[in-house]
């Protein structure tokens, strides 16, 4: 037994540490395309105190740690060969539901949807539904990634609703952010308290600057009613203009555009908008009317909103295309080298045709059996979050290489003109971080200051590891 293994076992107990290959192989890869490195050890702490000890030990032995929530990101997390993976799934308790102060505090490994389900029993919900694309994600991972959630059009990104964090810094120091930082009154009720927004420093940092161990999030009452609308357009530009109008009217809770990939089953058109509205009954009616006016002004044709409702209630993307999940997802050993990010809504009028042209002119696509899963857009309050999802045969090594090449080319195409990615982690970092200039330099400075031994997620976000 290695000394490191023995010392980790002394911290967390032998049952929570493994160097068995069959275990280690399972902690290398997220939902992204590349396999990742196999860690030497997997350790599962149960408390912040254990996380502190593990981090201190990593500094002592200079062995990098990679953090593991549920690994449901799609862009390659970047686990390195020979590292220690610290899986945070045992830290999964809901610590406090505080309806008076409209917050919930949970440990980092609590499943977002499970926390939401507990709130639902009280008639409340997380301030952003969904917690990103996968409802199996963890609270801490979602915040660390700053996931783009369902309902972004009204509620914004996940990070906007984080009130306070408990973070273990790379040297083992435990800090609390926002109002929770006051050691005499550690109440996590307001993020904008006690000086600079240190909460924001860790949101989207992908675990490079500290280990998020507790998260306090805003909650609100479940809205009185939900309404659903679905529109088809013959022209992309009309759909984009309708979306812009809906954004300016603040009419939709969640507005989704389908601008590529399979068309919704049984619906004619070239571009499609799904709108979900959640509000009081009276206000929802006004907002429904606003969406209708915005769409019909730009030649949108109303469709049966059943697929929109099913998408929202069943959390299955397939319903956006009026397709049961079995038909849409089943039987395809494909992987998805996703590129996604924020861009101006009106820029979609240029970007989407460019993507279609790129696909049409790329001979490799047909040759390796590529599909376009979708050029789908989650509209934020004022911009567009475009997902460029292409699918490649998982079992074909040539297709795999082509897919990674396509990811690089699409990233170059979009990041050089309009797009800034949301989740970056390791897979997208090479394509965006060098474009950040002095901001990247500042991030490197922060990383070096907080994590001089590069023990936390080295290489993720292009920070630490071989990047410096």
């Amino acid at each position, binding site marked *: 037994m290695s000394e490191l293994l023995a010392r980790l076992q002394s911290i967390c107990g032998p049952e929570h540490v493994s160097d068995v*290959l069959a275990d280690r192989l399972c902690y290398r890869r997220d939902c992204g395309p590349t396999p990742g490195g196999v860690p030497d050890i997997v350790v599962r702490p149960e408390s912040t105190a254990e996380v502190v000890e593990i981090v201190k030990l990593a500094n002592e032995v200079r062995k990098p740690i990679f953090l593991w929530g549920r690994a*449901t990101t799609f862009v390659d997390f970047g686990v390195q060969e020979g590292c220690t993976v610290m899986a945070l799934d*045992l830290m*999964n308790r*809901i610590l406090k539901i505080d309806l008076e102060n409209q917050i919930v505090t949970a440990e980092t490994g609590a499943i977002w949807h499970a926390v939401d389900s507990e709130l639902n029993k009280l008639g409340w919900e997380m301030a952003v539904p969904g917690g990103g694309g996968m409802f*199996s994600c963890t609270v801490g991972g979602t915040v660390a990634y700053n996931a783009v959630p369902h309902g972004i059009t009204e509620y914004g990104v996940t990070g906007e609703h984080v009130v306070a964090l408990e973070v273990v810094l790379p040297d083992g120091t435990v800090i609390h952010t926002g109002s929770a930082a006051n050691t005499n009154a550690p109440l996590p009720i307001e993020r904008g308290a006690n000086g600079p927004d240190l909460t924001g420093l860790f949101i989207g940092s992908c675990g490079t600057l500290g280990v998020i161990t507790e998260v306090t999030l805003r909650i609100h009452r479940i809205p009185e009613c939900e309404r659903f609308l679905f529109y088809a357009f013959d022209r992309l530009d009309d759909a984009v203009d309708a979306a812009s109008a809906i954004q300016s009217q603040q009419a939709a809770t969640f507005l989704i555009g389908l601008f590529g990939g399979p068309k919704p089953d049984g619906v004619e058109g070239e571009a499609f908008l799904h709108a979900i509205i959640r509000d009081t009954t009276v206000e929802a009616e006004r907002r429904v009317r606003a969406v209708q006016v915005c769409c019909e002004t730009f030649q949108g044709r109303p469709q049966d909103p059943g697929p929109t409702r099913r998408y929202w209630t069943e959390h299955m993307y397939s319903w956006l295309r009026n397709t049961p*999940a079995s038909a849409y*997802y089943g*039987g*395809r050993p494909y992987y998805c080298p996703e590129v996604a990010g924020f861009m101006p809504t009106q820029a979609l009028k240029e970007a989407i045709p460019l993507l279609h042209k790129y696909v049409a002119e790329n001979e490799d696509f047909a040759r390796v059996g590529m599909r376009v899963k979708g050029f789908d857009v989650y509209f934020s309050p004022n911009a567009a979050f475009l997902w460029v999802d292409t699918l490649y045969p998982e079992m074909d090594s040539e297709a795999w290489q082509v897919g990674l090449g396509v990811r690089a080319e699409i990233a170059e195409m979009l990041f050089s003109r309009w797009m800034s990615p949301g989740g970056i982690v390791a897979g997208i970092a090479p394509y965006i971080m060098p474009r950040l200039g002095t901001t990247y330099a500042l991030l490197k400075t922060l990383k070096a200051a907080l994590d001089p031994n590069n023990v936390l997620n080295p290489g993720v976000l292009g920070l630490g590891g071989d990047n410096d």
Partner: protein
Amino acid sequence: MTDDLPLRAVAQPIYECLRCAFCFDLSWLGAANLCPAYAYGAFESYGARGRIAIARALLEGELEYDESVAQRIFACTECRACAEHCFKYIDTVRIFAAMRRDLAACGLIPPALAAVTDGLAETHNLYGKPHEKRLSWLKDKSRVDHPARMAFFVGCTPAYVRRTLARDTYAVLAASGLDFTVLSDEWCCGHPFMAAGQQERAAEVMRHNVEALKALGVERVVFECPGCMRTFREDVPEVLGEPLPFEVAHVTEELARQVEAGRLRFDVFQAGAVVTYHDPCTLGRGLGIYDAPRTIINAIPGMRLAEMPRHGRDAYCCGAGSFVRYDYPDFTDQTGHERLREAESTGAQYLLTACPACVTQFQYVRGQINSPLQVMDLITLANRLARWR
């Protein structure tokens, strides 16, 4: 790894795995476990996503079958919850069955299960009892080997361990007016062999039972044990490479039909009694039978059904599936305790189920945790209260 191992045949579904982790828990019910093996083993390698990652590593030569892999594959009740909730609709259990066959070929069957299947090959029953005692639960042998269009396949557990259940099932079928037969030379269905990855041994017993039933002119076989029924319906055609020459049905389906036809009514149970129903994994997710037991329960006067949070397709395993108690008793106990506590949380006084293995498991673990719940098989209760018209 050689090219002819069964895992190669399921490479495509292995590579379909998205790694979404929907196979870990039932988050729409709060912090609720979905996979008992993951809850037990705790590392992802015990859950479906992890096991598929192991399968992929085996295919790609990064890992060889060994005892650590064997533990992660055999410490699984095959409850099918992972398959039921898979985002990509992958038949995960089929992948794990292929891995069991590979492990068996490598001599890596867990020791207790291996010993049980060795005994089974000798005695044709799971419990190593004399074969000639298989029908000792049945006094009136008039239907034995009597040519009929319908047969009652008893199964090892009712025949040797839960004989009351065998008698109750026989009684309700007889009272329903159906003409049926019982085999004098019934062998184990083959489920333990399949669980151990011993397909060749399974084929032998399957062939024996099918031929014996065909010889009596049977067109329909009724089961009390869901494990036997699923083995016949799903495994026998695959292993023997030919369609099953008769229909199969579960006794709860028969009784539900009689209830719906108005031929079967029930006496009052205890007035105000609250019961909860445990969906056996094999009856529910394995065979898709969720409504028939509830039809029977709801027809019993004076009984109120309180569902557990995890029920129907979301039901949590009792912990007994796939014979894991032989080698992983702590896993079985832990899972059984969790399910029993969930049943208690409904406020029920009675826990009903419709599977001899589940009943045996609950009877066993309720003593371990001093549960006040009374455990009953639904067929036994139905027979006790039945009023036939």
